[in-house]
Every structure is written in C-alpha cells, then in structure tokens.
C-alpha cells in the first residue's frame, strides 16, 4: 500500500480500539446506495520506478528546443542553490505559517521577500504573493475600486498594450462584480500608450488606470506622464511591471510626482523555472495608505514574550478566514514556495547581479533584432525603445514561419495575428541565457525558412 504504513496488526488494533468490526463499518453513516463502485476506469497503480519512467519519457518528448518566447514567462539562469534550498523538506512540506512559533523559517522568508519586492518596486509595502501576475492584476483592479474613495465608478482603464492574457484573466476575475474594463488604444507607430489617446476619458469617473512597463510589445511607456495623468484625473495608478527590468528601470514607486498606488507583476523571472506556466507567483505592492485594502497574506515583524524579534501573520482582518464575506479577497493558499525561491534568487543576484542580468537581456534583444532586421523584408514594427522583447514583422504570415522554425527546434516567438490582427508580426524575447551563436542560429534559420515557406 504505497504511502500507507498500517500493517494488518495495526489495523486490527485500531479497529478494536474504535470498537468497529471492519474499516467498511466506519462508513456506515453514508447511505449505502451512494457508495462508489470500483472506479473501473482508473488504472492499476504503478511503482515509483514505473511512474518516473513514464513521466521521464513524456518530459523528454517536449525537450530540446531553443526558446525565444517571452510574453509573460521568461527563461533565466536559475542558480542551483535556489531550488536545492527551496525544496528542503522544512520549506517544501510545511503548511501556511498559522502556528507562528513553529514557522519562523517561513515567516522570516516572507518578511524578507516583502522587503525585497518593496525595495525593487520602490513601494511601501508588499503582500506575501498572489497566484500569478495576471490574476494579480485582477485583484489589483478590485483593490483599486475599494481603495479609491474618491471614485464611485466601477470602471477601469486598461491600455491594449497590456498583455492580452492579463487582460483576459482580469476580465474573468472582475466582471462578475460588474466591473467594466475599458480598453485604451495604442499608438501603432510607437507601440505605446499616448497621453493623447487618454484625453477622451478626462472628466469621466474611472477608478484606475493600468500602466504596463515594459508593455506587452516590450516597449517602454512614458510612465511618469501616464501616472500623473491618472492621479490628476482622480484615478489610482496600477503598475504592471517585469521585476528583472526594475534593476534598470525607474521603480513604480517613483513614477510621476507621487509614485503609483498599486504594483503587480509576475514574479517568475526571479528564479522560477518556465515550467509550463506554473507554479509562478504574482507580486503585489502598494502605498502604505492602501495596505488595509490589500488582498492576501501579510507578515509583520513583532516581538515575543521575552522581547525577542519574531514574525507573524498580520492584518488578518482583511482575510477570508477572519472576515469571510467581507474579506478583501477569497485568496487563502498562495504561491509560497515560488516566492521562497524568488527570495533566495534575489539574495543571490543582489542589486548588481540583477542589473547585469537585465542589461544582458536588453543588449541581447537589441542584437537579435538587428540580426533579424538584416534579413530582407524583416523589420521592427514599433519605434519606442524596448526592454527585452520586440515586435518583428516578417515578409510573410507568421504562423507557418513559426511552425517551420519549431521543426528546427527554434521557438522563435509568438504570433500577434489573433490578439492584434497583425498576421505577419511576432513578439520575440531574448534573455541572458542566449549566446551570440544562438542568435546567429536563429537568424540563419529564419532566413532559410523565409526562403522556403510560401507566403
């Protein structure tokens, strides 16, 4: 019996203590006709060896490609120490730190995490993580509605330069509460959100403006202007940022004259593997004045009976287990382990290490863009400066080109046909993991494929 320790002697002794004749007797409160059958469709159990072999064979099927896809998930070097530490049983198999005295390890890690993320974003406070960046944006919108006392509106402005996956998850999270997401068009030349395009909303009541930096196209928005505009028009400013980029880019806490109100983002680039999309974690920070509207767990520093420093869950009156239907969110289990990994990652990289990672990402992306644009008919779509992603236009429809490159084990980016009706455009990402040979191999393969594929 895998994972079950009971010998037949144990079972007998336990039943004797209970005073039951059989295990089946313990289910005698369940109406007999409801009892499950033999679950015929389930397979026989496997040994660890067999299960591992099956999964190893499947993992192998998906292996081996060079990945130039970004779009919200980024391939970075992850120091070996990160997961060797994070998967130590003491972190890996602990529950949420409800018993603070027996959970100081996890609690201190979270406090350190909150501090690091707050420093990185330039914000006052942070929570202990939400599910991911996209659902985090949904939570941020709901939070903004609660926090913006000046606004009575249930409407929020969302530039189309925000990752379409984020926009779609945000919609799913918020629309049942009657929240309306109003999409703001972008400048098709620069690939950014212009102040002019916001003018039309002035004088109306919106609770918040979302500002993505870098935006989905990799382009850098004029964040100071956007933040100031939002706040001048009675809105909260919600920043959506890439954490790696913040080693180089102005932190949202300093955008505009007062900094933004809420920051969210995907934490995955901070030491979390691509891993097919999860577990990642969303980070969420805000200005001190909004802290009581924050969803999710928050750890505070305090003292014990003897005055010794310790850490504990705090502001729990925001949370569902205390506040139930009046809670700031229904979130309970969050993404603790991924956040733990990120804390270790940030400690290992430090401010300078993270800056050089960000720098290499940026430089490599520029370099690849140059190499690609040297191919006839290939060009950059937008003029704004970018961080580590760039939109490239091909002389032919993107889909078959991407498929042909995938055949050569190069995942060359994603097509913007569906989300932006730009059938020839692809969004490409390069991080510090790629060497110049890798970039050359991509460019050569693209040139070859373009020569082959019929438009």
């Amino acid at each position, binding site marked *: 019996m895998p994972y079950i320790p009971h010998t037949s002697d144990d079972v007998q002794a336990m039943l004797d203590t209970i005073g039951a004749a059989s295990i089946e007797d313990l289910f005698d409160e369940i109406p007999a006709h409801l009892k499950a059958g033999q679950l015929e469709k389930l397979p026989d159990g496997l040994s660890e060896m067999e299960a591992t072999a099956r999964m190893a064979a499947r993992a192998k099927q998906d292996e081996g490609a060079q990945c130039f896809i970004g779009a919200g998930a980024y391939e970075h070097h992850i120091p070996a120490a990160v997961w060797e530490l994070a998967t130590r049983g003491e972190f890996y*198999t602990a529950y949420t730190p409800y018993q603070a005295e027996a959970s100081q390890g996890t609690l201190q890690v979270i406090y350190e995490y909150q501090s690091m993320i707050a420093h990185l974003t330039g914000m006052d406070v942070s929570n202990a993580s939400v599910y991911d960046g996209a659902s985090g944006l949904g939570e941020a919108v709901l939070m903004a509605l609660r926090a913006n006392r000046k606004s009575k509106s249930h409407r929020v402005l969302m530039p189309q330069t925000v990752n379409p996956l984020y926009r779609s998850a945000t919609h799913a999270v918020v629309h049942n509460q009657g929240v309306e997401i109003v999409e703001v068009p972008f400048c098709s030349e620069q690939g950014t959100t212009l102040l002019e395009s916001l003018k039309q909303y002035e004088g109306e009541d919106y609770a918040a403006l979302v500002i993505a930096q870098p935006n989905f196209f990799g382009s850098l928005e004029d964040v100071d202007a956007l933040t100031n505009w939002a706040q001048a028009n009675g809105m909260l400013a919600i920043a959506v940022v890439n954490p790696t980029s913040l080693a180089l880019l102005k932190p949202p806490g300093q955008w505009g004259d007062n900094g933004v109100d809420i920051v969210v983002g995907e934490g995955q680039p901070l030491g979390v593997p691509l891993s097919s999309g999860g577990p990642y974690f969303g980070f969420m920070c805000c200005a001190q004045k909004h802290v009581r509207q924050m969803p999710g767990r928050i750890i505070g520093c305090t003292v014990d009976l003897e005055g010794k420093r310790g850490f504990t869950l705090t502001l729990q009156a925001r949370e569902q287990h205390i506040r139930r*239907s009046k809670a700031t969110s229904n979130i309970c289990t969050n993404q603790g382990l991924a956040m733990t990994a990120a804390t270790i990652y940030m400690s290992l990289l430090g401010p300078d290490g993270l800056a050089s990672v960000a720098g290499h990402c940026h430089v490599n992306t520029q370099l690849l863009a140059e190499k690609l644009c040297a191919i006839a008919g290939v060009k950059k779509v937008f003029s704004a400066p970018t961080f580590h992603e760039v939109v490239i236009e091909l002389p032919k429809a993107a889909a078959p080109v991407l498929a042909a490159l995938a055949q050569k084990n190069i995942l060359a980016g994603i097509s913007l046909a569906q989300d932006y009706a730009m059938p020839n455009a692809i969004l490409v990402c390069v991080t510090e993991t790629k060497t110049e040979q890798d970039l050359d191999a991509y460019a050569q393969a693209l040139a070859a494929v373009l020569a082959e594929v019929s438009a």
Partner: protein
Amino acid sequence: MNVNSLIFELSHQGRAASAQAPKPVSEDKLGAIPAHLRRQEKPALPQVSEMQVVRHYTNLSTKNFAIDKQFYPLGSCTMKYNPRGANRAAMLPGFLQRHPLAPESHSQGFLACLFDLQEFLKEVTGMKGVSLTPMAGAQGEFAGVAMIRAYHEARGDEARTEILVPQAAHGTNPATAVMCGYKVREVPVNDEGDVDLEALKAACGPNTAGLMMTNPSTCGVFEREIEAIARAVHEAGGLLYYDGANLNAILGKVRPGDMGFDVIHMNLHKTFATPHGGGGPGAGPVGVSERLLPYLPTPMAGKTDDGYKWLGEETLPETIGRLSAFMGNAGVLLRAYFYAIVLGREGMIRVGEYSTLAANYLLKRLQDVGCTAAYPDRRASHEFILTFAKEAKAYGVSAMDMAKRLLDYNQHAPTTYFPLLVPECFLIEPTETEAKEALDEFVDAMENIMREAKESPELLHGAPYTQPVRRLDDVKAARELDLVWRK
C-alpha cells in the same frame, strides 16, 4: 553569522554571489533606454556571498515544523506525506524548461499528463468534465461559482443573487461568493454537525443561485442528508457546489457526482499529496456535471487523432475564461499526476479508508484520555473536532494555550478555532500516511497536556518554551506595522 539575522543585516556594500550574474553591462550599451525611464538608485537588495545565502536559508529552514519532520494534524489541511518521487518527476528538465506558450508540437508529453489527470479526476469524483487551471482551492471555488453564475445567466435566470453557505463553512466559501457578485446567506448547522435541513429548505427560493458545502463537512462528519439537501436546492432551481477540501475522507468511497453535486473543486495540495510549500502553491481543479460543461475555465487539454491539443475559447466559447496567464500550476499538476498513477484504482480507495480509520482511532484514544468530542455520537470522517470549552472554564486554559504547548512536545498543533461554531476547538486530521505510533505519541502528548492544564495552567499560558521564539505579540504586529525592513 548570527542565526537570527535578517539577510539584509548580513549585507555589505559591494559583496556579491558573483558566480551567479553575467559580467556587468557597460552603460553605453544601455543607451537605447531613455534616461528619464532609468532607475537612479540601486534597489536595497541584500549584497551577500553565495555561502551566506545558503547558510542563511538553510538555518532559517530549521525554524519550521514540516511534515518531513513532525506529525502535523491540521484539520481541513490534509497534511499527508508528499512523495519525493513526485518532486523528482515534476522537476525533470523537459518539464521545467518548457515555455507555457510552446507550440503543441513541443508539448505532447506535458499535454498527455494533463489529459490523463483530467480523466483520472473525472472518474474519481464522478463528474463529467474537469479543468485543471485553478491555482488553489479558493480559485477553484471562484471558478465553480462563476460557472454557476454563467449557467443562470445563460438561461436568463437573473433573479438568483444569493449563495447559501452553511455556518461551519470555510471562510473562502462566503468570500468567493462575494467575489462572484453574490450575496451570502448562512444556513445553521445542528447539534450533530449536520446542516439544519428545515432551515435550508426555508432559505431556498427563487433567489438561490446555489449552495456551497463540503461533505464530510468542516464539522468532521458526513452530511447524512446530502440527498435531501441536493433535492431542496435543485428543486429551488439552485446548483450544488462541493468544496473538495475534504475529499480525502471519501476518496474511492462516495463520489461528489453521485451525491448530486453540480460542480466541485479539489485541493490537489491536500488530497493528491502535493506539498504545501509553506503556504502554496496548490492546485484547485474544478469538475462539473453535464450542464456546466460549456463553462469550464480554459485552457484544457484535449485529445484528437493527431495528438493532444489545447482547448481554448474557440472550442469552449461559453467558458468563464482564463483565471491566470497560462495553464495553472503545471508543476503541481504534474506532482498530482504522479501521485494518481502510483496509487491507481486501489490506492484511491485506500486513501478514504485509512484516513477514516486513523481519525476514528485517534478520536477514540483522545476521548479515552479525557478529551471532549464535539460530536461524540458521530463517526469521525478523516477528521474530527475536540472542544476544550470545559477546560477553558475550569482551568482558564484556552485551545490556543494547548496548541502552543503541543509544539513543546514536538507535535504540530491541530487547526484551532475552526469551525467557528464550536467553542475552544481543535480540528484534528491525522491522514492515512501516519503510522499508529505517531497517533499514539500525539495521544501521549495530549494526555500530558490535559494534566498540565489542570495542575499548572500557567505553564500552558507561557507555552511554547522550546521554539525559536516564545509566544508572539500579534497585537503589536498589527498596531505597529513593520512589514518591510528598512536600513
């Protein structure tokens, strides 16, 4: 290095784990980024050596209780053994390195695992369709209630504005209902831990969108009138939501689908043995009956003659949509898949059996050493409730005091003060993976503590004594907020 330092307190200007970063990039190569968008001051991340990091977090980890070290009978949390084999399988490079947006040509192995897991969960729950995307139980609840809403809306049934929730429900249930735009109406629970059927019937009506409940309930007992409850809700036009946090108790014995539930979520980080990681990640797949199939959250895994495919909005136009950027907590799903195929059919059935055996045994033994069961006439499910109301009155020791004292016996405390309707309670869930000796040791500890409560209550007030810190000042934590270290 002081084992009590913050990592920031070890930081020295200019120190770095320099094997981890590429060489610095010279400023001139960053010229494309306009100056006004650049950061001016370095973020105050720690500047420490690699060994300092390893030592700091290794030492910190030792300040945790964990299933890998202690019995951890947290009720409603199903702290069972987390197979290390699942970790190894999920951490295979082929899985770790796969980008979530990789084309299907490069996703067949991963999709096959997801597809198989969907099928497995359907059979084990008796539901007609399963989507794996929710990232935790609460997100599963959200998906479930959102589907209920989508269902009513699709039928133009707009009057249904209320979700019923039994008094004993987990806090995520009412919170979820509100996130889905519903009002919450609580239904009382009777002295035997069952939903008050008459009160429920009275509450049901044309406003009823649905009822959220667990079974066995958070009272640790099986809701015997489940069919009558289902009938009442269905007859009123509402749907029945199953909070699968307690699925472990009945795995292989009764299926939510057979009990009449329309939609359920499962906490794979409980029932399917994926680790809790100090607070997550989890996975909260949702399963639905026939009529809710169109609304399942995307993306899902599908199978066709030429391989596995993603099912998105094109295939499921009425879906409630995407709950996160990608496909949920893939790594958690892979761990759960490993667990599922190792256990297989017979293993699934054993889970319910042996977790129930353990709980009933532990309850009996604890009663024998003087503990008071909240529902003494009921079978325990995989968990049960003790109440220390008597001790609180007689000796002035609270359930919290007893919980803290347990830590000194190297036993993790059970869930305390939940469900709220039982005063001074412990919700105790031993799981099927604990040996009888572990249960006996817990009983020994409780026996001692019961004696201590009587003989020296002040001892309990001061507990714990053996942990890295003594009892913490929660009031100060909330009043003098210190959430971020600053120099």
